[in-house]
């Protein structure tokens, strides 16, 4: 199970419930719009209340609400525990992330490697964070100026990035690949191009990168 997996599960659950509720209400509405149209000649009901029905319905709703609260709180705890586990792992890769107007700097704590860029429309100007496959990675994020947010959409990973405060995200990349990261908190003029990449590479290549400061 990954962070993305937890998101997918809960999203699917809520989407199914929401879809069912939407269909039921819309179908009911449409059916009775036809059956109860003035032309159909049914007189209006003069009933104004059915307290028993309303109270039992409200209790049923409360049951659904409690179910959702419990399930989603558990999912949130699973997610937090997973991150805590990553952070506490002996082989964790620590990276200090600094957001600034308008780009990112990634500073590896295991070696002298550090990368930054200018984040313009040309993708070559975006920094690439290089991480090893299979080892947990902890991103410790702070901002140099205003509030930014680090977002890797494909991994369902997001956190706001504050000045004078450090937030942390921990994640494991289980296969080789390159992911797009964005700034998702509006931060001024060049916010739209404040993107970066994360590249997961085999351990050996990562060690070379750490030593040389550039990917092989």
């Amino acid at each position: 199970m990954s962070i993305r997996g937890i998101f997918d599960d809960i999203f699917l659950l809520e989407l199914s419930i929401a879809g069912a509720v939407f269909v039921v209400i819309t179908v009911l509405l449409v059916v009775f719009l036809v059956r109860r149209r003035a032309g159909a000649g049914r007189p209006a009901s003069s009933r104004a209340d059915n307290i028993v029905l309303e109270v039992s319905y409200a209790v049923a709703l409360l049951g659904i609400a409690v179910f959702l609260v419990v399930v989603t709180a558990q999912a949130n705890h699973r997610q937090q525990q997973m991150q805590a586990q990553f952070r506490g792992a002996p082989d964790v890769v620590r990276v200090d992330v600094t957001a600034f107007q308008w780009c990112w700097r990634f500073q590896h704590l295991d070696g002298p490697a550090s990368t930054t860029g200018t984040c313009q429309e040309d993708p070559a100007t975006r920094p690439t964070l290089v991480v090893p496959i299979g080892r947990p990675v902890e991103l410790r994020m702070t901002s140099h100026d205003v509030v930014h947010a680090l977002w890797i959409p494909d991994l369902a990973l997001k956190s706001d990035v504050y000045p004078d405060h450090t937030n942390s995200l921990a994640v494991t990349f289980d296969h080789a690949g390159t992911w797009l990261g964005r700034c998702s908190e509006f931060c001024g003029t060049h916010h739209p191009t404040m993107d970066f990449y994360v590249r997961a590479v085999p351990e050996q290549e990562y060690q070379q990168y750490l030593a040389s400061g550039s990917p092989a």
Partner: protein
Amino acid sequence: MTTTSAPSPRPAPPAGRGTASAWLTTTDHKRIALLTLGTATFLFLVVGVLAMIIRAQLTLPSQHLVSNDMYHGLFTIHGSGMIYLVVTPIAIALGVYLVPLQVGAPAIAAPRLAMAGFWLYLGGALIIFSGFLTALGPALAGWYSYPPLSGSRYTPGAGQSLWIAGVFLAVLGLILQAATVLWTALLKRGPGVTMLRMPVFTWSTVATNLMVIGSFPSLLAAMGLLGWGRVFPQLFTENLWNIGYQHLFWFFAHPVVYVMFFPFVGVVAEVLSTFSGRRFFGYRATVVSLLVFAAFSMSVWGHHMFSTGQASNDYYSLTSILLLVPAGVEYFGFLATVIGGHLRFRVPMLFALAFVPQFLVGGLTGIMVATPVIDYQVTDSYFIVAHWHYTLAAGSLFGIFAAFYFWFPKATGLMLDERLGRWHFWLLVVGTNVAFLPMFWLGLQGMPRRLATYLPGDGFTTANIVSTVGTAVLALGVLVGVVNVVTAVRYRRRPAPDDPWEGFTLEWATSSPPPPLNFDDDHPLPPVRSFAPLLDEREHAGQEGADDPAEHGALR
């Protein structure tokens, strides 16, 4: 054709009542409300045009119709304009117009305070828009204007300062109006109108205005903090003040979402029950659910801060998800009313009916974004943009138009055209859904909100084109509505009777438009035995003799 100069079917009003100075120094709650509603409607069109420019820019990748900073100014003024200057003022001023009428009162409590509210709101709006005239352009830090970005270090220029001052002033005005409406509903009701005989709309304003009194002052504090920080920018280098601002802001800004929603629950309830020809089903349950909903909505603000890493997410998630109970009870009332009705599909009814499934989309996705593990992914993305456009545009805006078509004849003495009204409605339904549904997809695809432009390789192009087409249809719908109003007012071909819809509540017992003190000798206050007094009368007339309204479930 000869020019028709305001032929009123009623005796001429006392001399001098029609002059501009009479309007601007009025103490009549109907005029105060119409001034506010008129200003808000005009600003709705202006702020809507800004959205057109935004959509034009986003239609295709790598477009630069406007500069990044101008784009940021446009979405800032679009968002803050719609929230502070359009929907919230309409939600509150609708109460200024209707509550005294619905509770059988001749006037609003403290009318000068309500009028001061209008002037402050107007002043605030002018100050905000005057930002366009400054050297560095309007405010551009978004409608929630987080520091340090909104501080003088990162957003220099008078535009941002003017925005802060304008928001402060406008919201102060709205608090004053809300307090007078609440005071009227609680204390200044006419004879026979007990609390439990107040119409659902009036109850919805009670819940709304309680939230205004509790939560809006927090925004005044937040704007004060921002203003202070613009003078002393050092303040916002400390996390304490940055996160403190977010708490102050969202403590206002979540309840304001329900301030922009509840009055339209009331509107939809009134319209649905009127055109279903029956009293609203589950009146007591709805009243209780509105009040509980309002109380809970004071404690959900932190769900806007899930991704800050500095809030107790489980608490705010709990309170937010529990909101589905009162919301579900209100929907039960909507559906049950329609299910037992004798339905007439007039224009206000169409808007009210569309509100039901469309707002539901906003509500159901609201539960999703109240779930932390979903919100971590979708917050600050187009999913959120889609979510609250479904609540505000597909929901509240449809409520606004339902109210508009429903009470326009009452306020002006003129009927709007049904055929144009239907065009307006269908264009708006198609436009709204085509414009906002693709945004859910864009958000899940990874498009952040507040993105001045994107690249061809991002994969956002198709959905953005569809969305822009929808926006154009939506705009056309609004335009048809404008034509409808202009032709109705210009030619005055269709005078409105006192009660064009066979309404249930007291405003339909007086003339259209109502006399200065709402009820007079020609239009006396009818006896009030339930929350639908005119329906009681009709039923009474229908079945002479047999008659205790309580037998039909009327409340005493």
